[in-house]
């Protein structure tokens, strides 16, 4: 339980709770970035240190830990939002849902037919609960930028799954996922800019008011 990968995964789960519970956008972005940066260390502990794993770790670190937060901070500077994330349902219900899905992830993770070495590890529960937390962010937040953060958490969850397979998974696939994310952030940045220019707010509920 006290091995470095498990500790990293524990921190990732704790970050999930923290992100779901916090109301400040800046803190949210920083936490998601930190979560991604922590995860990028995971391949180093898990696999034999080949060029492949180094590249994976460094690539993930630069993208998740540096580039994406920089893009997001730039985006909120441009559209001038400093306000809170404005959840659709309150922080406490979101947190409770997050706890439920985490507990569910632990129960479900133990029932999956896994390889013996992955059984009872924290990987599957951590991946599932991060996915669920990302989903919750997507569903419960009104602001487009918080929903982007939800996507990022989602990707973090997929990354945990991916590290389990890093030996067999072609390098191109991993990098493809990361690049997809980067492009998605770019696109979301542009979309946010447009929403902001049209409605002078980032509230996605305004989008449903569009008429012919």
């Amino acid at each position, binding site marked *: *339980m*006290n091995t470095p990968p*498990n*500790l990293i995964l*524990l921190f990732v*789960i*704790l970050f999930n*709770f923290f992100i779901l*519970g916090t109301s400040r956008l800046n803190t949210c972005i920083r936490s998601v970035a930190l979560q991604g940066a922590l995860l990028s260390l995971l391949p180093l502990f898990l696999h034999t240190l080949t060029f492949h794993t180094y590249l994976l770790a460094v690539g993930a670190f630069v993208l998740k830990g540096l580039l994406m937060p920089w893009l997001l901070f730039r985006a909120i500077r441009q559209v001038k939002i400093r306000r809170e994330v404005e959840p659709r349902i309150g*922080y*406490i219900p979101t*947190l*409770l849902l*997050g*706890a439920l899905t*985490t*507990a569910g992830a*632990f129960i479900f993770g*133990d029932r999956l037919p896994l390889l013996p070495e992955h059984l*009872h590890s924290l990987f599957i*529960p951590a991946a599932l609960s991060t996915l669920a937390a990302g989903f919750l962010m997507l569903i419960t937040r009104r602001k487009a930028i918080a929903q982007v953060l939800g996507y990022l958490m989602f990707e973090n969850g997929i990354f945990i799954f991916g590290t389990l397979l890093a030996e067999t998974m072609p390098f191109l696939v991993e990098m493809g996922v990361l690049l997809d994310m980067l492009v998605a952030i770019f696109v979301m940045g542009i979309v946010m800019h447009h929403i902001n220019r049209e409605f002078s707010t980032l509230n996605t509920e305004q989008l449903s008011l569009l008429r012919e």
Partner: protein
Amino acid sequence: MIIRLLLHFLLLAGLSPLLIGVITRTKAIIAGRQGAPLWQPYRDLRRLFGKDMVLSSTTTWVFRAGPVVGIAVPLIAALLIPFGAVGAPLSFSGDLVLFVYLFGLARFFTVLAALDTGSSFEGMGAAREATFSCLAEPTLFVAFIVLARISGSFTLDTMFKTLLANNLQTVYGVSLVLTAICLFIILLAENSRIPFDDPNTHLELTMIHEVMVLDHSGPDFGLILYGAAMKLMVMGTLVVNFIMPPSTGDLFVDAAFYTAALLALAVGIGLVESGMARLRLLKVPQLLIGTSLLSFFALVLLLR
């Protein structure tokens, strides 16, 4: 047996005001002031006990009972927990339930005493205290369940004494660390320390605990302060017990270790209070529920 009982009482009665003094002094030093001397809380208590008491004519015996229960409860609760390696003088299976509800009893009487004055201001404080302690209680229980599960015992003495320092390296380590963090946050919440309540303010609408005791004066107020100090020490003991070394065999060396750890905890509380601002009142339930989720997560980790 008698020696242990006496040692428990002496430590509790003698040391608890010093903790308040250490916290205040730490905060003063961090803020660049010299601060009150460490024994200022003892002087305050002596001054208060030498005073006369003013009782409002609208109050009944409930108003007097509040402070008395408030000081009796930490005295009894302290008997149930070990002070470091110094074993608990009184313990039986299931005493963790008694421990939690003893504090519930004290809270009940404090709230009643506040309501008894008929002041709307104190009623507001009573409502807040009741709400926040409701949210803090599950954490305490879940934390105790974690410890009971690890130690396989429902006795607080065994739960806290046998294992904690040794088990940090084992599979239980993570759950233990999370539980310790939860208990520290509960310590701050239950003793109305800074992220939850500011013990220094007396004229703000956001205060929780202090508002309930505004009508108490003289010896009654002294009892309340003394009881609050003892409560801080008892709750602090729960946290300190996580890092205590195993018994050296000599009762007094153990007690010295415990005292040192407790003073270090007081400095820690002072540092936390210097580094943080008080939370907005609306955020307090959020943090408390987050804490109970954290303790719940520790339990999930343990059960799988």
